[in-house]
């Protein structure tokens, strides 16, 4: 686990573990949604949950482990940006699928033809 960093602050009000647990719950909720949902939009929502939980981790790790740097912050930023892109494209696709099949079920597009 690398070198052991001593907790010098004399006790943070909220432990890092708490953040991680929160993000973990969010992450697996997203995973669950990704597995069980049939609707493309709902799958997207699940993915957003997953991404968001990662953001929390980035920020929390940055804050707790390397407070004098900003990588976590920036990666969280980038993730947000990328998720925005992804959502835009995905929703475009969803709308297209909707036009083709009349609904947004993921089962329709199992086969990448027609």
């Amino acid at each position, binding site marked *: 686990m690398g070198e052991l960093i001593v907790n010098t602050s004399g006790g943070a009000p909220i432990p890092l573990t708490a953040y991680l647990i929160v993000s973990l719950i969010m992450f697996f909720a997203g995973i669950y949604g990704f597995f069980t949902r049939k609707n493309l939009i709902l799958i997207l929502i699940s993915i*957003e949950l997953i991404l968001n939980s990662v953001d929390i981790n980035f920020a929390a790790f940055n804050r707790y482990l390397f407070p004098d740097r900003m990588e976590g912050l920036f990666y*969280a930023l980038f993730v947000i940006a990328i998720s925005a892109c992804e959502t835009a494209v995905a929703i475009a696709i969803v709308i297209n699928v909707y036009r083709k099949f009349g609904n947004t079920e993921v089962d329709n597009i199992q086969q990448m033809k027609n």
Partner: protein
Amino acid sequence: MLEQIIFSILAIAIALFSVLAVTSKRIIRSAIYLLFVLLATAGLFLMLNYHFLFAVQVTVYAGGIMVLFIMAIFLTHKPGKIVERRTNLKIISSILLSGGGLILCGYIILRNVTRVYNYLKINEINMQDIGRAMMGTEKYQFLLPFEAISLLLLACIIGAIMIARKEKNIETNDNKDLDHK
């Protein structure tokens, strides 16, 4: 003490709404629950003293992306429609798997993470620092990823437009195909 209370509220909100977001039967509710989760996350960022991140989260996520979602839902769904569900087998297996994952990862976290953090009370990171870090080309500066992201963003915008654009001819053909079926 106050911080802990706020954190607890936020944490409970996140946990609750994420689960609701993925289990709700109505799609619009899922979206709204997602919005709550995103906002709560923003709250967490605030607690971590990342104000800029908080702002981005609220504007881009809760503002931009959610609007996109809601628009898409309105475009493709009748309001109040109940979404179809997977078969029980799939749901159960997914519950087991994600539950198992949760337990496993939780175990790892609880076992390993407690001893290694270091929390420093620092002031709010001011915008100049962020701007410099983002626009600089030196060590710990992020111009290149920033530019890459912006290019990506551009590509996505164009792509989204291309995909969502209506192509008259093809569409009619496809509709015919559908009719046949």
